[in-house]
């Protein structure tokens, strides 16, 4: 029993670290820019399929593929933001139309992937997939350990980038006071599109990690919507360290529920936590009131 519990917590920790990578982009885009990009998990799934395609054809390591494609997704994100700005933000329609717009984009991505790849599950090949590291009674599968490490490194990198560099601080500034930033001579639109680009760029890496952890089919992204929003809100909207710890919490909660109640209940865990947070403490665990 104890053994089962410790193993559930350990795999929950690994899972949670990976969730942090998925939620990272949304934490910037939703938490800092106030753009409700509900299609973020769909971009993660695109990342998974790109990884699958390259890995299947050229045998490249999934995480390397993710890193290589970051600049392309960065540009994609910039394009997405420009379109969003022109159509919705400039005319002040972001609340209703913007939400429905991202919902539509999410749906289109899913249908396109179904049209191209069908609804079969896809996975990737790498040397470490299938092996397990044993520390005493605790088994850590490499297919989860490697994504955990990669996710932690990327989260740490984004944290440092946002807090130490000029542009990172500008992103923080645009979330705090847009007009003041403008008075300082910086263009808020440029800062926002840069931040949105970073958000989407993290999605491709998250996608590569996702397909390393478990097989992917086009509608998997939907399950992640609740997880990532729960994590971002629980983590206090835009706080990177808060996001990381909230992700670990959700991961452990899901793993415990899957082990002791049943795997079919696990998807509801994050959504339950999300509803509870919204009802009781909407500013999140790590947020300021």
């Amino acid at each position: 029993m104890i053994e089962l519990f410790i193993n559930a917590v350990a795999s929950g920790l690994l899972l949670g670290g990976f969730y942090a990578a998925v939620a990272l982009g949304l934490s910037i885009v939703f938490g800092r820019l106030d753009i409700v990009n509900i299609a973020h998990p769909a971009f993660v799934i695109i990342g998974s399929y790109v990884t699958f395609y390259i890995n299947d054809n050229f045998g490249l390591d999934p995480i390397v593929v993710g890193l290589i494609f970051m600049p392309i997704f960065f540009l994609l994100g910039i394009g997405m933001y420009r379109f969003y700005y022109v159509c919705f933000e400039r005319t002040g329609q972001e609340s209703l139309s913007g939400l429905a717009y991202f919902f539509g984009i999410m749906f289109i991505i899913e249908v396109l992937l179904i049209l191209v790849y069908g609804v079969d599950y896809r996975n990737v090949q790498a040397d470490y997939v299938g092996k397990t590291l044993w520390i005493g009674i605790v088994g850590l599968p490499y297919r989860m350990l490697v994504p955990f490490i990669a996710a932690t490194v990327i989260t740490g990198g984004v944290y440092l980038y946002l807090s130490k560099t000029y542009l990172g601080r500008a992103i923080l500034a645009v979330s705090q006071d847009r007009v003041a930033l403008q008075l300082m001579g910086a263009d808020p639109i440029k800062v926002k599109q840069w931040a949105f680009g970073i958000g989407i760029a993290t999605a491709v890496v998250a996608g590569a990690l996702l397909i390393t952890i478990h097989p992917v089919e086009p509608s998997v992204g939907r399950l992640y919507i609740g997880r990532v929003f729960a994590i971002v809100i629980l983590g206090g909207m835009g706080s990177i360290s808060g996001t990381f710890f909230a992700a670990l919490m959700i991961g452990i909660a899901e793993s415990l529920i899957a082990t002791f109640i049943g795997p079919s209940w696990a998807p509801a865990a994050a959504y339950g936590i999300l509803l509870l947070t919204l009802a009781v403490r909407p500013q999140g665990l790590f947020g300021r009131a």
Partner: protein
Amino acid sequence: MMKLNKFWLVIAVVFLAGIGFTVVADNEFYFYTTYAVMQLMIMGIAWNILGGFTGYVNFGSGGFFAAGAYTTVFLHRLFDGPPLLIAVLVAPIVCGLIGLAVGYFTLRLKGVYFAIATLAVAIILETVVINWEFVGGAGGYYLLIPENIVFFDSYIEWLFTLILAITLIAIAVSRYLNSSKIGQGLAAIRDDELAAECMGVPTLRLKLISTTVMGGLMGMAGAPFPYFITFVEPVSAFNLLIAVNAIAVPMIGGTASWIGPVIGGLLLGTIQETVTVNISSELNMLIVGVVLVGFISLAPQGIVGLYQDFIRKRRKRND
């Protein structure tokens, strides 16, 4: 007063025409197609009461719809096949209460939180249904269509008449909410909630009314669904396409008035049925998505808005 009478006259004529249609037409295909179009229209009308009139986005339409459908399944199991009308009356109460509860907990927050919460409710309901063996669990549930039907030639004709009645009720409710004092309050919330609150509009109460009505109508649309397809399983009942459709219909028609989703429902429903029958259902989904995004980005006021622009321009030219 004159206009009001005209509206009810049209409603009565449409209903009688529907009854006449069941007497005249024999091909069941027509009934299946028109049923699907009307179900789509009700979902759009219901979504628009909260989304269009009040300005709060609901992503969980599939959840409310499925809750209605599973109310029917639950009653069917519990009482060994009671009349469908009972389910059609109970489902809106159940779904209205779900809407009220979601609204109560999240509507005091910013609109996006409500949107995300509706998504969460849909997934939680789906997980509950998957794990609930009494209503069939993940495997689904078969319903046998009652054999003794009064008045109608076949069961689908009865379902057709029922959904026609529900559609007309939904239109009437939506029109009432749109043009009454409640509707003005809702519009005030949509345009500037803080200002509305300051002017003494009871914002929370109005928002709760509109979520409850939205949930109730969606549940009503879902209640006959198990009899329509005779086999319900969670994946089809909670399908994301339902939620996307419910948003697309008013977005295409126009969100500001009650007539928008009626037009959008007729248009999108006809396109969908044509494409699904003649080409493929995947392409149908792609078309819905692209049309939705296209209308949101290029014509945010929908067809009604385009028409009003057209009239305005023509009037200007004539002056």
